[in-house]
């Protein structure tokens, strides 16, 4: 509280001083002759513009030195597609970087150089077809190059997933991620949103009549990471239950919206295991994160999932330890049915929860 007042007091004081100076300088200008003081201010501002350019360019450099260690370096992507994205960013950075320096230098340099001076006349120069042609054509050519690379990469990234790709479903809802693996048959069973019933162990709304879904494995993203296999393409089938979310995979440079009612997909090949990344970054806590990148409500900030990239053996071992959701749901149903049949009052939630907890392990 005191600091708040302190800050406000300083601001007010600073303002009062500035205001007094401002008023005084206006009087002085009137007394000394407005033209004369205008010319002086002109010089000061021209000089400041030049200073701004130099300090600004240094600032850009300094900012880069300070922050480059904290970003995802171009070329460090952990997926095949990510490397394409990085490549494209590099080309674009080079092209835009040159234009940036060139135009900013010209802008501020001209301002300084052509400030109003005694006996310097402005040059009447209303147009020049040649110049205008040049700066229509050159940007157009540069952009064509960028567009061409961009579109080629884009088609590669959004093209159909290879046949050997594994499929994983990821479903967003306020404010968590859930995953589904297709099981040995490599196909996901059907879902229908009206079948969603967490208490009946059907959190994704699988249609049990569909045989394909009987071996599907459900993973709650709040308890467990998504497991992927290194160097094996993965195709994510993306869904949302309530509002739009977005599967953001910064290290893989991938992203795709999760839209209720309209499934989307994306595929990529992770190229490093989590263990390798831990070694590479020297950060024992390193983990691939799934961020929700589309504003989805009050818990948007905390809608976090994680991914483990591992070898095929490790993955096989992990998936073998999982029970298909169908089995879990059916066992819950059987317990519920039998208690009901035995004439006992409907299962108390607590009892049901213990059953579920046991079934899961």
């Amino acid at each position: 509280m005191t600091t708040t007042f302190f800050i406000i007091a300083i601001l007010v004081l600073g303002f009062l001083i500035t205001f007094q100076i401002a008023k005084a300088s206006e009087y002085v200008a009137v007394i000394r002759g407005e033209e004369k003081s205008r010319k002086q201010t002109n010089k000061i501002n021209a000089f400041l513009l030049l200073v701004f350019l130099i300090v600004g360019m240094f600032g850009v450099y300094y900012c880069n030195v300070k922050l480059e260690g904290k970003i995802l370096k171009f070329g460090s992507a952990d997926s095949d597609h990510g490397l394409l994205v990085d490549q494209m960013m590099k080309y674009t950075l080079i092209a835009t970087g040159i234009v940036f320096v060139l135009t900013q230098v010209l802008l501020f340099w001209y301002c300084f150089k052509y400030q109003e001076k005694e006996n310097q006349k402005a040059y009447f120069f209303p147009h020049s077809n040649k110049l205008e042609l040049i700066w229509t054509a050159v940007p157009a050519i540069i952009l064509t190059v960028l567009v061409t690379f961009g579109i080629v990469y884009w088609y590669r990234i959004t093209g159909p997933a290879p046949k050997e790709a594994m499929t994983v479903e990821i479903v967003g809802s306020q404010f968590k991620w859930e995953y589904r693996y297709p099981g040995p048959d490599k196909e996901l069973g059907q879902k229908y949103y009206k079948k969603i019933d967490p208490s009946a162990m059907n959190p994704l709304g699988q249609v049990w009549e569909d045989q394909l879904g009987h071996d599907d494995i459900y993973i709650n993203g709040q308890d467990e990471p998504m497991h992927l296999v290194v160097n094996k393409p993965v195709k994510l089938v993306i869904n949302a239950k309530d509002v739009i979310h977005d599967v953001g995979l910064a290290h893989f440079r991938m992203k795709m919206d999760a839209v209720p009612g309209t499934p989307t997909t994306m595929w990529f090949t992770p190229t490093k295991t989590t263990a390798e990344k831990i070694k590479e970054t020297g950060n024992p806590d390193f983990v691939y994160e799934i961020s929700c990148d589309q504003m989805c409500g009050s818990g948007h900030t905390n809608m976090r999932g994680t991914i483990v990239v591992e070898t095929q053996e490790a993955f096989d071992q992990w998936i073998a330890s999982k029970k298909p959701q169908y089995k879990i749901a059916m066992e819950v149903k059987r317990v519920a049915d039998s208690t009901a049949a035995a004439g006992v009052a409907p299962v108390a939630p607590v009892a049901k929860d213990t059953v579920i907890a046991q079934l899961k392990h």
Partner: protein
Amino acid sequence: MSHAAHIEHSAVGFDSHHDGDHGHHHKETFLTKYVFSQDHKMIAKQFLITGIIWAFIGGLFSVLFRLQLGFPDQSFPILETFFGQWAEGGKIKPDFYYALVTMHGTVLVFFVLTAGLSGTFANLLIPLQVGARDMASPLMNMLSYWFFFAASIVMLASLFIQTGPASGGWTAYPPLSALGQASIGSKAGMDMWIIGMALFIVSQLLAGLNYISTILNMRTKGMAMTRLPLTVWALFFTAVLGVLSFPVLLSGAVLLIFDRTLGTSFYLSDIFIAGEALPNEGGSAILYQHLFWFLGHPEVYIILLPAMGMVSEILSINSRKPIFGYMAMLGSMFAICILAFLVWAHHMFVTGLNPFLGSVFVLLTLLIAVPSAIKVFNWLTTLWRGSIRFTPAMLFAIGFVSLFISGGLTGIFLGNSTIDIHLHDTMFVVAHFHIVMGVASMFGMFAGIYHWFPKMYGRYMNNTLAYVHFWVTIVGAYLIFWPIHYQGLAGMPRRYLDKSQWVNFSQFHELDAMITIVTIIVFAVQLMFIFNFFYSIFKGRKVTTLNPWKATTLEWTTPINPGHGNWDGEIPEVHRWAYDYSKDGRDFIPQTEPVSENESTH
């Protein structure tokens, strides 16, 4: 009424009869002069002052949520004092944070940089610069302000209702914005948001049609379209964009209302929320995004074009040189105007859009960078070999060019769908559009205010305060937004209010704190600007010459304090374009001066 008669005359081109005392002969009451005024100059001031009030509110919101971002662990008891349950324990709650962000965006994009900017300068400058006594329909013009005022009241009221204002982002994507169960801000606050926006759209349509017809029909004698100052051209294109795109937003909003209240399923399908499956099936959440961005992208140019026009004018006047490439400037604005309608899906590259369509939008999006580049090079050439006067307006115009370059170049990253996969919805986008649209257009607006303040109030603003305002703001703007690109390059999503639990996004503590401190300073300096503005209305140095900036355009041929009707005598006739600066050894030649025989041609 006699000024109505004049309007008819000027509609045909010029004003034939002479009567000296315009605007003085019917008794004006306070109400007709300041409130229900039909004088375009007064309406301009109404838009400006309402815009300034909104800018204050929108800016204050950003200070509040920057406090959260800069100091997520700290509590600010003063917040609880003011906001009670929304900031319990002095900490901003997520719902409150999102409400602040949403209203910040809505207010600044629509109420400040659309209504405040176009509303002010289209109203002020179109009649004055084309040589008309008023708008084509002063009544419609007045209504456009009052619809805006009504929109403002509704939006403002939504801040005070119990469930708070809309909080689904300024883009208000459904289903989040359609379902009260999804977010507290999607309850009554969202209804008020939609109503407010609908009123706002009506205001924009009334205004836009009026601007267009004034420019097309009411130019004074000799004012061919190709002699119009670029400000008027820019405002013309702005109005065309608005008239064609706002109805689409309205339709999007109406369908949203239907989904919210009538149980229709335009945007809703397969939704299981709050433990319950909704009946809606078959809608498309993405449809809304198409409707929104069909306005949304033109909207960013609606915001930018007036600034571009004023900057062109101010750069030319203060370099004492003609704007370089007048026709190229027109052509590029025209191209921007067309392309602005053909790029909307670049906001939707990762919504599951068909990849082929995506690639078409990449091509069209990067095409729009070409006219942007042309404009930049033309501005640079305008400065080249000039004789530059750094008035406060000129400095802001230069700042505008710098910011437009910086922000336009990052657009080239985002317009490339391959890169956008990575950068979409990260802080990089936030940095991009704040620089290119937010701050740049603000700079255009400041430039316009400093430049035309003498015309509006017959006084000058204080120069020293103006220079301090400029220097702190441009340094601050870069300090705030430049490093935010890096957060985006780290993959940090936008609209995250606390990164502490993330392994990969929590490395920017110090940076965030620095940005927040700079934000507070910059905000304080804007307060100083507001003070300077109001102080100078009453106490500023008086303007003593008709044409303080030695400009060629018609507004400086009116009296220092023009009455309703603008010119005391006949409306002057125009003989040349607006950019004869430093021609044939003369500092400037007003548009009203006939072309002499031995004048050089260009």
